[in-house]
């Protein structure tokens, strides 16, 4: 058994490494299929003759594609994503500065969607084929059809105008906070500044809700169907016949089995959160990676776009690999 687990993890890790290599190849090819001089694309509006010469030397753009790829991949492996001539910093630094804000927002939204989606899904399954179920199922379809474009605007209006709360940025600039972790909710607490924490907390709610509501709709549906499927199985009937209290059957027997498949699917939906994240960070002026990508697009800064695609894809691959391995630990059935 143990050997099988090791084998599985090894196989999964190899697969992840290949995926990451594939992503690097794709991003490299994309930056080189441009018609015309790739140096001009890298430099964008800053394409002066001196800069073009510098970039050509730096990335070996006058050499063969194979040599260019070797230069490219060796720099990537050293964690060097190149320089943004438009923004005037290294791409790695720009991304590292913005990443914590995005991770905080996405994780917060994810937890929020679990808190909303799973209990409602259980409720829907318990009352299946009643009016409650119908209403919840309808809300779920509406939830995951909500484009973040509309939801973001509606929540901006509701929180910003109707409730008069601050809805832009992560925190009021008048709070000076020592940065320990880069996650503002933690940092404000570590600074012991409750007012700053409340300000940051009230600002993360609208963008996080925008990301969470569609995902909550999806989780509601998945939980409902998964719980219903488990409810039909023999061991549940046995437990019920033994006259175990309904709550114990629900939480000890059904949920344990029903929630497993939801975890893997939730991992895959990270990609959906990324799409929403770019829109949401733009609407709520959230200074994360999504906002950086939006800025890079409007400044025609291809180096930053390329670097962000690389970083987000690698995070996505790592998250899914970890989820798969965890899943295998939790669910003995899929161990070979």
């Amino acid at each position, binding site marked *: 058994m143990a050997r099988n687990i090791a084998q599985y993890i090894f196989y999964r890790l190899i697969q992840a490494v290949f*995926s990451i290599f*594939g*992503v690097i*190849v*794709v*991003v490299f090819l*994309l*930056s080189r*299929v*441009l018609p015309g001089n790739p140096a001009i*694309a890298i430099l964008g509006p800053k394409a002066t003759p001196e800069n073009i010469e510098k970039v050509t030397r730096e990335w070996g753009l006058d050499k063969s594609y194979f040599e260019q790829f070797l230069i490219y991949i060796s720099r990537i492996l050293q964690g060097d994503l190149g320089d943004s001539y438009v923004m005037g910093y290294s791409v790695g630094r720009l991304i590292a500065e913005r990443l914590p804000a995005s991770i905080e927002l996405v994780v917060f939204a994810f937890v929020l969607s679990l808190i909303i989606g799973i209990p409602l899904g259980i409720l829907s399954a318990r009352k*299946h*084929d009643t009016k409650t179920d119908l209403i919840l199922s309808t809300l779920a*379809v*509406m939830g*995951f*059809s*909500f*484009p*973040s*474009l*509309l939801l973001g*605007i*509606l929540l*901006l*209006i509701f929180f*910003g*105008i109707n409730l008069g709360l601050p809805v832009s940025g992560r925190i009021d600039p008048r709070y000076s906070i020592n940065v320990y972790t880069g996650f503002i909710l933690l940092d404000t607490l570590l600074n012991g500044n409750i007012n700053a924490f409340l300000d940051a907390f009230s600002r993360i709610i609208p963008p996080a809700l925008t990301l969470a509501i569609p995902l909550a709709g999806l989780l509601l549906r998945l939980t409902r*169907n998964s719980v*219903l*499927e488990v409810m*039909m199985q023999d061991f549940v009937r046995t437990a019920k016949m033994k006259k175990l209290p309904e709550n114990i059957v629900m939480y000890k027997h059904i949920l344990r089995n029903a929630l497993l498949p939801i975890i893997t699917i939730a991992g895959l939906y*990270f*990609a959906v959160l*990324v*799409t929403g994240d*770019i*829109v949401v960070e*733009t*609407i709520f002026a959230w200074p994360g990676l999504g906002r950086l*990508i*939006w800025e890079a*697009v*409007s400044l025609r800064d*291809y180096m930053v*776009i*390329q670097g*962000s*695609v690389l970083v*987000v*894809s690698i995070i*996505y*691959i790592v998250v*899914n690999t970890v989820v798969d391995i965890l899943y295998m630990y939790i669910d003995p059935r899929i161990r070979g």
Partner: protein
Amino acid sequence: MVSSRLKVLEEVLRIKRVRYGIFILLSLAILSIFVILFSPFEYDRISPRVHLPPLAGSDTSWPHILGTDNLGRDVFTRTFYAFALDLGCALAVVILSGSIGLAIGIASSYLGGVIDAVLMRIMDIVISIPGFMLAIAIAAVLGSSIFNAIIAIAIVTIPVYARLVRSVVLSVKESLFVLAAKEAGLSDLYIVVKHVLPHVIPTFITQASMELSNAIIYIAALSFVGLGAQEPVPEWGLMISSARRYVREAWWTAVFPGLVMFLTVLSFNLIGDGLRDYLDPKKRTVIGVQVETS
């Protein structure tokens, strides 16, 4: 054959969700055609009467039903022009990526061996990049236009169809009637078209219906970011992007395009959802999802 197809259509139309979806979609389409044919406003005519609220009077026989935007253009007219535009673009995406994905899926499963392995590894790589990020990277390379946005989104969604078709074909390939057709000396191409494709179509259409709603979201999001439609093209994402700055003064310029977009996405999800349950007979009975058939 014809009567059995009609029967399937009839059964599908009995599914409530499919019916609601089609109803919403048809209403929006009729409104859109009506606006394109009869609206006295042009979608790109700028006027000094900016940010008029909904139902404000105009100098034509129509009021500004949904108000005017920051350049004095009629929001109602623009929103429903955008319906035609976004739907057309989404269809283009699905047709493009669907047909390429279909071809790759069939080639991969039928030819097998090295070709299958290479094609599927490429699909694996594309799928391991979050779709919208890849679409941004491709669109940024191609340059900002709605046409390039369509190409970028189509490329990103090809693997979905390729994998789906491949798995269905692989399961049909070994079935008795295909083997019999082979034994009878029919050509591979004939067998694929006559005996294999009909089995692919139901799953394919269901997927395509869901992908239409995805394509709409992607097109609007790319335009919102600045990599799709450009002014003065009436497109939902672009309209919301320009209206975003004036939400305090004129909420209607952002909210109404978003609402119509939401209804369109919702209707495709309802149709796709209903079709999926219809095709999955296990769900129809065991889970108690209510699908009214026959």
